[in-house]
């Protein structure tokens, strides 16, 4: 029996670590993060008339933390905004303002570097919108740009 228990100790964490995390709505145990929509768009605009372009939709973030520990939400861009024809816009030109503060805070994206968007002490049920903006510029090359941003909710 002791031997079986020992095997369980070794195997169970190893097997579970490969458990898939649902891409749209993650909910394992005591932590939940929902982000909608999963895509936002910045339409073209005259930089003189619109120095900052608002995204077509605010991003609704719903957080549920059932731990009684500190938690934080970070946003990480996988890289710069990249265009189909080779254009590049530094992702740091994308910033957000929250509808609820705290726990959400202002911030801007940084390539491959998680940026704090919200934090608190669990347990918590939080719902708020992040309004994303793109700093407009005459220096941008005309192109169709895109990039992926990962929202990560972590209990510390």
């Amino acid at each position, binding site marked *: *029996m002791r031997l*079986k*228990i020992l095997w*369980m*100790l070794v195997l*169970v*964490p190893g097997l*579970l*670590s490969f*458990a898939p*995390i649902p*891409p*749209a709505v*993650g909910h*394992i*145990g*005591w*932590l*939940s*993060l*929902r*982000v909608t*929509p*999963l*895509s*936002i768009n*910045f*339409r*073209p605009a005259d*930089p*003189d008339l619109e120095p900052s*372009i608002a995204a077509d939709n605010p*991003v609704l973030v719903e957080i549920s933390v059932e*731990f009684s520990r500190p938690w934080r939400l970070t946003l990480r861009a996988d890289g710069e*905004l990249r*265009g189909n*024809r*080779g*254009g590049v*816009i530094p992702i740091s030109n*994308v910033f957000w303002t929250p509808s609820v503060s705290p726990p959400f805070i202002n911030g801007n994206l940084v390539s491959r570097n998680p940026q704090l968007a919200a934090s608190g002490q669990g347990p918590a049920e939080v719902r708020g919108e992040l309004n*994303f903006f793109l700093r407009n510029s*005459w*220096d*941008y*090359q*005309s*192109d*169709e*740009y*895109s*990039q*992926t*941003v*990962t*929202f*990560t*909710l*972590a*209990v510390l």
Partner: protein
Amino acid sequence: MKCKSLVRAVFLFAAVYLSGQEYQEMRINATIETRCKIELSTNFVSFTRSGQPTGALIPQNEPPVVVTVKTTTRRAVRIYARIVVTGDLTDPNSGATIPAEAISWTASGSGFNSGSLSKATPQQIGDWNRSGIYQGTLTFNFQDNTSYYPGTYILVVTVTVSGF
């Protein structure tokens, strides 16, 4: 019994450990259109003949015209700013004319060119090959000639900017 408790504890540990982080991916899309605009500091320049010798170059009475070209463009696309003229300088009272070609300009600023007006072809005042804001000045001059009748002559020119 002891074994079941231990297994439960292991599962609990694994669940707590794994559920300490959640993530979601969001896509950001942005469209930047090809766009250009031109701004002039003034829409009026004038020249005054004051007894200069024949063929004298008379500078405009006003300060140089500041030209600002703003453009977002694709790679390998050139942006051209041009002056388009459709007629000659004309005195509306007498009907006398002076060829548009009598007016020239000197340019300063990155990408700006000096030149002369032409009824035959739009004349280039500058060209650029990438997005940005370009500012320069144009100082217009009038090539006088004693054969021109005294009068007040008027000419309307159009400044355009476009990408090719």
